[in-house]
């Protein structure tokens, strides 16, 4: 159900790349960001920054990420999976 002007990014690699871009904007160029990076603990981001990051992801992927789904996420790879699932559900 993605809107026509939004590129559909369904493969995990593209999703992860996009997440990394958004994380880097907030955590800085020197941050080490990999699949096992714990988003809340490893990057020095506070809860406000993280909420804003989630809003940006929702816009990028044209999905809504319910709070209970966010609660399950710890690492970058968790988040990638969650987004992939939500994209499939929306399609």
């Amino acid at each position, binding site marked *: *159900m993605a809107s026509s002007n939004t590129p559909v990014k369904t493969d995990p690699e593209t999703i992860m790349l996009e997440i990394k871009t958004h994380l880097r904007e907030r955590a800085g160029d020197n941050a080490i960001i990999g699949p096992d990076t714990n988003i*809340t*603990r490893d990057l020095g981001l*506070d809860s*406000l920054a993280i*909420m*804003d990051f989630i809003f940006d992801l929702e816009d990028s992927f*044209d*999905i809504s990420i319910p709070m209970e789904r966010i609660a399950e996420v710890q690492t970058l790879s968790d988040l990638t999976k969650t987004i992939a699932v939500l994209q499939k559900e*929306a399609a």
Partner: protein
Amino acid sequence: MSSIFDKFAPLQEQHTALTALGRSPDQLQFEDIISPTEAMLNGKRTILMGTNNYLGMTFDEGAVNAAIEALKTQGTGTTGSRIANGSYNGHKALEEELAVFYGMRSAILFSTGYQANLGAIAALAGRDDYLLIDADSHASIYDACRLSDAQVIRFRHNDPVNLERKLKRLEGTSGSKLIVVESIYSMLGDMVPLKEFVEIKKKYGAYLLIDEAHSLGVLGQKGRGLCEREGVEGDIDFITGTFSKSIGTVGGFLVSNLPGLGIVRFVSRPYMFTASPPPSVVASARKTLAKIAGATDLRKKLWDNATQLYTGLQQAGFELGPTISPIVAIRLSDPEKAIGLWNGLLDAGVYTNLALPPATPFGWYLLRSSISAAHTTEQIALAIEVCTRIGRELGLITLSNSKRADKTAQQGNGAAQLNGDLQTRPCATSETESAVTPTTDDPAARV
């Protein structure tokens, strides 16, 4: 040996920093309450500028006498829930009076405003439903979401475009969609763009619940709040509110024009499993509620006072919330200076609230004050004077920086992180630049 309290170490650290100058908001103890605007604090006569006592009703003679009478005739408490123990006459009467006041079909009384949000929202939004909440929602709304079985989707603060995008994605799903907003947001005093939200809720067939906690008695010709002022009462599905602010006592409510509201009593745990409000509280709430519609002069005085405080602080050079409202918050980024200002004001006999991240937008430290119709012009002038003097001493403002509009929205950098997980946030950030740009539109138009 580890302790069950170990996990609170960061919080403890933050609290210790807060008490560096000897005081913390949670430890203040007023020895004597002199009036709605004055109390004795450590032997010092102190002006109260942070009590949410918008109409100064806490010492209203009629309300006090009604409470005394109810105490004498009906006792100190109900000792149980209405589901288990039945209702007192006052409970039913107050519900009927609330429904008449709002011109709606029915009302349900709760023991507090917190429980009204918890009980209403968690009951209304069930397993297959969707809750759409503002990112800056009050803790009671966030907690309601945890109690609800619905899917919870947040939208950016006061952002109709972001909300619409989210509703659009839900098109074709079968569950009910309940949008939750607040009339006046309690930290900065900014208001929801209600007409735009009403258009969206109609377009997508969603329900709209508005928490009028800070606007009952404060907005609208008859004091019914933002819905009245905006002329959209016919399009609002649910209103929640509290007696703990303009009504000057304690208690909460849910009102609605939808038939069938009564069933909420049997599915709402914060209604069923807690004691009902005591008769004295109900009696004073009824007395005060009866005065709200006619309290036009008090509302005018309240807004005149709010304007005096807001413009006075703005001219001194402080950065404030986006609009004049009875909640006036000074935005600060340096915790030590925020604590210094709060303490300095207390030393000078002015009590305000100190609000800290993450309960504040943008991770700001807020010196929050709430104004009352009962404040005198002299009290407010004194508060502005003291605030300006201490603000200069702390280097927060200079003689030359009056009316500086800071456009940089700080992304909460340096905000204390009390919650490690991604989900829990009692309150959060708004993204729109306009939300932090001061405007001084005619306050009279807001009443």
